[in-house]
């Protein structure tokens, strides 16, 4: 288990220059993520979770510090199709049907038609959207749109998934279902997943490692290992081990939280 980490950040800093001053979005971030890990980023809003994910995805360039993805620069990794990204908003194209939206990255990859069709079917099925292929996004609820965007990211079949609060807009039942599906997918495919969430139970249920962040400047407060094993039925959430880790995360969040608002 001493292979190179898939994602390795060293002393990352990112300062946004805005019209009215600068925002220190990331400060001294040092983090290694091994292949096959499920890492959750948790923390109050504005602590830089999205920014960190965007740096990994080469959507944002750090001001200073080093970062490597798959042993190379984030840009090279992106060009190699290293990851699938799920945005906080569904970001569907309004002029494409749901099936066509899932097809978008597959078209860009240049996959043949039958391969596209089977991947669309499989992944829409996974997020319970079978039957909505021909609907346009505005005909679906916000939660269904978000599920379609998850299907779109999964259809690429990347080794790494970067997910920014993907289930934030969903109701509890659907969220549980998708959490279980995601866990199953992760266990069977050995994907590396970086997952931003607001929910402590969700983070503990899914992760092998929980990164607790705190704001102003956005930094890592604490990294909590979360070894509940690969087999996690939903009712693991009532076990003492689970509750202990959840407690630890809650304490971390409380310590990191500044009350200067």
């Amino acid at each position, binding site marked *: 288990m001493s292979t190179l980490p898939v994602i390795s950040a060293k002393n990352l800093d990112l300062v946004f220059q805005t019209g009215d001053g600068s925002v220190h979005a990331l400060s001294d971030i040092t983090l290694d993520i091994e292949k096959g890990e499920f890492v959750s980023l948790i923390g109050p809003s504005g602590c830089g979770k999205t920014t960190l994910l965007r740096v990994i*995805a*080469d*959507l944002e360039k750090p001001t200073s510090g080093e970062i490597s993805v798959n042993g190379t620069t984030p840009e090279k990794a*992106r*060009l190699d*199709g290293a*990851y*699938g*990204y799920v*945005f906080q*908003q569904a*970001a569907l*194209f*309004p*002029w*494409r*049907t749901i099936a066509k939206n899932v097809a*978008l*990255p597959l*078209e*860009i*990859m240049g996959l043949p038609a039958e391969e596209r069709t089977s991947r669309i079917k499989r992944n829409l099925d996974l997020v319970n959207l079978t039957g909505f292929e021909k609907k*346009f*996004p*505005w005909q679906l609820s916000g939660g269904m749109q978000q599920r379609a965007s998850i299907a779109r990211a999964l259809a*690429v079949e990347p080794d790494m998934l970067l997910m920014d609060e993907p289930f934030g807009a969903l109701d509890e039942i659907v969220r549980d279902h998708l959490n279980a599906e995601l866990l199953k997918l992760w266990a069977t495919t050995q994907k590396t997943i970086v997952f931003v969430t607001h929910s402590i139970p969700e983070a503990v249920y899914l992760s092998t490692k929980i990164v607790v962040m705190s704001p102003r400047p956005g930094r890592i407060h604490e990294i909590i290992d979360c070894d509940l094993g690969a087999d996690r039925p939903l009712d693991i959430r009532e076990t003492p081990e689970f509750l202990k880790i959840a407690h630890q995360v809650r304490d971390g969040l409380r310590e990191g939280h500044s009350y200067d608002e």
Partner: protein
Amino acid sequence: MIAMRDFLTGRLVPVLTILVAIVVIWYGAAIGLNGPVIRDFEKRAGETSEGMAFILKTWSQPKPTMPAPHQVAAAFWKYTAGVKLTSNRSLIYHSWVTLSATLLGFALGTALGVVIAISIVHVPALDKSLLPWIITSQTVPILAVAPMIIVLLAAIGVTGLLPKALISTYLSFFPVAVGMVKGLRSPDTLHMDLMRTYSASRAQVLWKLRIPASVPFFFASIKVAIAASLIGAIVGELPTGAVAGIGSKLLAGSYYSQTIDIFAALIAGSICAILLVTLVDITGRLVERRMGAKT
């Protein structure tokens, strides 16, 4: 039923009200503008007419300063339904001549406008260097430029449809270029970021994101462009004394003081404009519906 009633109260009634108002004002204007001429004529002939008889006279002059609506309607009817399509007096024939130049010029102008917009969006240097020239091009009065273009082209042997069409092109590429620059830049950052995560090429971003996002802008601008094309084609028929087209009818009418014919030709031009704009509008609606627009 409800749709019908909405159409009646929402569209038809207001439109008809305006129409009636225009006709009433028009008849009034005919009395006011033709009256003095008739008075003058009567004074020399030593007659006078009063009241209704006078008014009717102002509405029935053979070469009035301002023809009355029914005179224009009768002339319009005569030159459309009353003559053979191939006849030199047929307004339908002349409209077709003008329309063919309009459509050719519009097609060229739209293509040019789209190409310019795509270039401007992809080459930052062009944004600064090309756009001022494009805007300048439209400040030159077309009535001054049109004869030059027609005469220059005739000198190198280009005559007929193309010179007129090129004036349409000159007028119509501009709204398309400006509208499409805006449309191609309309995708939001989120969608651009999404394409970036797929490492999509610039061509893929153009075809799969920029162009579909620009469709509403496209139809809004070609609606302006097609009307401008028609004006361009008519203006292109004026300077050289073209033998056919709505412009030539306007010119011939003013040459022989046939005001009724001028008005009939103007009506033909307006109908062409309405038809073209409506056609663009319907096409736009159909395309946008196919692209999932809420109906």
